């Protein structure tokens, strides 16, 4: 009955105070996912590299990292960083955290999403590194380059180009996964949509708005990555459009 009598009131999207809440929610989603992506990139590339270097120790560490962070649910990891991780710290550090980091949930979300996505980025980078023929590594070493130089000038630039398409997907997934942070109370855009609903009973409008926001940001990411792909395209190598 309630649904049949539902009257849409789109003004909840901009009416005070809800408009402000939504904008804040959008900004939080952006901050959360961009910071997480930054962590994922830096950490993921490092871990991926660790897994292919000819050193038993780095392979072990890299392998363990991927096993742990890729093979447990993101939701569980969010709960871990929010509820359990602070308890593992010494007492003074815990106290400092409660006093000085009021938005701890946000940072727990950033770390959880970043470290989880890093495990996936690592595997994709590894796939790129392994797609390069052995003789390509040998050719670079044969000219006298050191291991660091071989990876920096020859292997990494090539591998990164190879994995750009799956990277786009990963970036999008990271940004959509940020919605899960609502479970630990982060006021990102999805949580805000529900929150406004609890005051106004106009959840249909707010969740529609949230969906539209996700679609817009995703379109921007896709366009940005397509542009990047085009810019770094190797002439003669990658199929022209």
């Amino acid at each position: 009955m309630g649904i049949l009598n539902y009257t849409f009131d789109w003004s909840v999207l901009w009416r005070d105070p809800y408009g402000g809440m939504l904008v804040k929610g959008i900004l939080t989603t952006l901050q959360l996912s961009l910071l997480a992506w930054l962590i994922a990139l830096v950490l993921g590339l490092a871990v991926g590299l660790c897994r292919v270097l000819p050193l038993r120790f780095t392979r072990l560490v890299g392998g363990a990292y991927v096993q742990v962070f890729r093979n447990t649910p993101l939701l569980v990891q969010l709960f871990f960083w929010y509820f359990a991780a602070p308890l593992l710290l010494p007492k003074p550090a815990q106290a400092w955290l409660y006093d000085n980091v009021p938005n701890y949930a946000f940072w727990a979300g950033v770390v959880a999403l970043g470290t989880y996505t890093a495990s996936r980025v690592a595997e994709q980078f590894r796939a790129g590194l392994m797609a390069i023929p052995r003789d390509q590594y040998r050719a670079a070493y044969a000219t006298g380059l050191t291991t660091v130089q071989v990876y920096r000038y020859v292997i990494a630039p090539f591998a990164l180009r190879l994995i750009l398409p799956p990277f786009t997907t990963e970036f999008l997934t990271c940004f959509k996964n940020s919605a899960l942070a609502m479970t630990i109370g982060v006021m990102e855009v999805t949580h805000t949509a529900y929150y406004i609903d609890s005051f106004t009973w106009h959840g249909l409008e707010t969740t529609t708005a949230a969906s539209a926001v996700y679609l817009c940001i995703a379109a921007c990411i896709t366009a940005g990555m397509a542009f990047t792909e085009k810019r770094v395209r190797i002439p003669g190598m990658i199929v022209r459009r």
Partner: protein
Amino acid sequence: MIQIQHVSLWYDKTHKALDDVSESIRRGQTVVICGPSGSGKSSLLRCINGLERFQEGRVVVDGVSVRQPGTDIHKLRAEIGMVFQHFELYPHMTVMQNITLAPMRVRKMSRAVAEKKAMALLERVGIPEKASRFPEELSGGQKQRVAIARALAMEPKIMLFDEPTSALDPEMIKEVLDVMTDLAREGMTMVVVTHEMGFARGVADRIVFMSQAKIVETGTGSDFSSARKTKGPASFWNGS
């Protein structure tokens, strides 16, 4: 120039790729290694610049022992050029960048000097007009000539060739072999793994035959020609 003494190499502990191989190559010589696939030719070649970690024996290049702990292997490799079957140019760099990378990063040459030198080398291998192109825009023969120029840019004392013409169409083989022949005539020390018996006969000071991880026979080009009529190395090519 190159002494290979009782070298043995295992892959995965069970597969022996080289079995007590000894060979000595003098300065200015061109030595061709041939034999059936899987006989250890390429592995032996890679032992010379330390790309293979052989477990037994010694390889001494220009007085420097390759696998000795104190050896600066990067410095040694800079003196040894290598050319591969599938060219292995860096696909994301132009021809010019491919050639100048190592001179600039290893030899610390300035860009201007490195590029000038690279141009001279491209002239020498006959494709100066391709300097700003990317590898995938070139034909196979052109790629291999760029690969040779890239190796020569380091002014190596030795050049190693690992089946340099095996991935090429017949009409491109000649352009690569011509460059290699010139190089040999100019006195470069060369070790060449190849199935091009014409090149071996015409250019090689010595031909080494490998089979099942061992050197089974060595001879000069003319030895090979006469032996072919009777027995010996020719049996490799007949598949027995």
